[in-house]
């Protein structure tokens, strides 16, 4: 009973004299938010020191090696880390009217925005997911038309293993006949550093942002060079 009248008076007296004005609370709240966001940013930068545009691999994973036939009909062996090149790898097919030309064209714009020295250490590789209809000749026409890339053909058995290694997937769709069909496929481009590690991937819808993709490639080219100098 005695507490009851005391409380309102206390509130009334405290407020004007020592109470915290609302804007001070607001400023403190803003400070707190800044601290939290800043902390999160620092945390994110520690985990991944470069703000990749693509999706970065937290723990770089060793990329799988594979063999096939290149666009000139010669044997092609992708042996990550041995050729000291940074590789942008994706899966596609030449009857693809949309995603694959876009991926090739934009990856070539990325390649061309690198310096000649960087270009010499960067390659684009398209692995065909349509061994039945694609041929090295057809792949050559395709990869040279949209820029400069390696077009790799391999038999279905080898292809399914490589796709699984990279977490890629493909499936025939809209089958009208043995030679008329579409292939639904995953649309990631994988960036593999000079040490043969998967570092970042972009979806094809990200590739038109050429400058940001180039920045990712440059970072991986640079960090790979430093890693190469250490030993």
């Amino acid at each position, binding site marked *: 009973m005695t507490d009851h009248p005391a409380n309102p008076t206390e509130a009334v007296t405290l407020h004007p004299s*020592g*109470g*915290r004005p609302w804007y*001070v*609370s*607001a400023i*403190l*709240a803003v*400070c*707190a*938010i800044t*601290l*939290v*966001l800043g*902390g*999160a*940013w620092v*945390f*994110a930068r520690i*985990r991944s020191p470069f*703000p*990749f545009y693509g*999706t*970065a*691999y*937290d*723990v770089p994973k060793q990329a799988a090696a594979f063999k096939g036939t290149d666009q000139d009909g010669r044997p092609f062996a992708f042996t990550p880390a041995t050729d000291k090149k940074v590789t942008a790898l994706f899966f596609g097919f*030449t009857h693809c*009217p*949309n*995603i694959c*030309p*876009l991926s090739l*064209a*934009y990856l070539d714009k990325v390649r061309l925005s690198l310096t000649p020295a960087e270009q010499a250490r960067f390659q684009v590789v398209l692995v065909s997911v349509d061994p039945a209809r694609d041929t090295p000749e*057809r792949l050559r*026409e*395709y990869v040279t*038309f*949209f820029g400069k890339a390696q077009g790799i053909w391999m038999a279905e058995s080898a292809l399914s293993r490589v796709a699984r290694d990279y*977490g*890629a*997937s*493909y*499936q025939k*769709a*809209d089958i009208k006949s043995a030679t008329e069909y*579409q*292939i*639904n*496929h*995953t*649309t*990631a481009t994988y960036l593999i550093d000079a040490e043969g590690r*998967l570092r*970042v*991937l972009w*979806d*094809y819808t*990200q590739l038109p942002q050429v400058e940001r993709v180039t920045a990712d490639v440059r970072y991986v080219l640079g960090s790979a060079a430093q890693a190469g100098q250490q030993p």
Partner: protein
Amino acid sequence: MSSAQPSISSPNSQPVRQPVALALSLAAASVAFVLSVALAQNTAAAQQGHMSGHSIAEPLAVPITAPVAAPLSVSAAALPLTAQNATIVAVPPSITETSVFMTLRNTSSKPIVLSGVTSAVAAQGMLMITRRDAQGRTGMSETRALPVPAGRSLTLSATGDHLMLTGLKRPLKAGERLPLTLRTSDGRSLKVTAVVRKP
């Protein structure tokens, strides 16, 4: 995250007497927490391979709803539809299929439903939608109708809905200007001049 709390009350030794301000601060801090989690996610692992790329791309895909019923009256008036930046993707000479992109704007108060596309240089024209399945595989499939909502635009692009020409009768040269005819479900049509461009 809990370190944020002391910074609110510590500069002032007085107990916080403003429950509203405290509640607001707490709410703001939780929003900040959610944001920071979202930020951290941005650089998170790509362990699931393509699946992570999937989520990035999702908002870009234009969802297509069921075809809108076509108006019964066939009007002789010109279609209140405009096409901008019509582009045919240049492809190598031996490739006989290609895609067509443009932005269509419906200036009327009724939806306009595309039902087909024809071109003198192609045996067939198709309306296409881009779909991604549960495994993250992207594919194109033919659709019978592409609605352009009333007073709105429909963007036909490489990442969503688009048109496809198959059975090209000759190689198309970059820079060439080619006429296309878009047909609508009410029997009208729109002539569009598209430019062949390398992507």
